[in-house]
């Protein structure tokens, strides 16, 4: 059983390598989020158990690539938090990736069902 879990985890990691960018863009497409909020949101899905050490450097890269933007915001008594949102380029990239993802799923499904 433990071996099976380990295998599943490895598979998740492999799959996420290509899809995490899409997942994050899509999560920010819904609404602006700060790091911890985004992480908790992803952790609510079984196959999206990424670590802080994966998330933050990736956010840094997406920002560097001009796909997302960030600003500091303080609400009420809470600590200032860094919120992320999609840029116009990010919005466009998200649409393109969503299309490619759906195409891939259809293709794979089609292969599996033959």
């Amino acid at each position, binding site marked *: 059983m433990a071996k099976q879990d380990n295998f599943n985890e490895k598979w998740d990691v492999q799959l996420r390598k290509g899809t995490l960018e899409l997942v994050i863009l899509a999560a920010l497409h819904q609404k602006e989020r700060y*790091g911890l909020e985004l992480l908790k949101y992803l952790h609510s899905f079984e196959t999206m158990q990424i*670590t*802080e050490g994966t998330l933050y450097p990736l956010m840094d890269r997406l920002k560097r690539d001009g796909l997302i933007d960030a600003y500091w915001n303080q609400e009420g008594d809470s600590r200032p*938090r860094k919120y992320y949102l999609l840029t116009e380029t990010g919005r466009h990239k998200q649409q393109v990736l969503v299309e490619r993802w759906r195409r891939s799923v259809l293709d794979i499904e089609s292969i599996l069902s033959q």
Partner: protein
Amino acid sequence: MSNREVIHQYLKNLSTYLSRLNKEEATEVIKEIESHILDVVEAKEQAGEKVDANAILAGFGSPRELAEQYVAHMLEGTPPPVGFNAIQTVKKGITRGAYYGMFAFGVSVSTLLILVGLAKFFLPDQIGLWSSTHGNSVILAFAADTQPNAEELLGYWLAPIAVLLGLGVAKLTKSVLRVLKHHL
């Protein structure tokens, strides 16, 4: 170590490993990660759970591994193989040495030239550019006596030429330092 100390130490180490980024970028990274950690700590305290800083930090990985991901884009092509980090440190030392060396050299040469130019007005006979031994050698000197058997070349023209050269060297030094600083 208390939780606070563990977190402080982690951020301090991270800051060291992020030194390749410019200061503003590094501060931004630290600030965000600190905000995240303190948010988690606070949430745990409010829920009455025991706070274990090491467990919280585990998700970020070691400061070194985390920093490497932030600076990865600065390394051209593939990341260097393990063991190359030491060489990078040495290279960085040379750049730092070159920076301060260039600064000292540029400032002293330009100051000297400007001083020579200005001093010509006060000590016209002792300062000059002489050609001696029938033009086989040239002497730029601040001399107690006028040069024997030598012909002074510039006269008072020495003043503006030396000052302008001095300013030129200063400007050149400034631009070279700017380039060096960028790679520091």
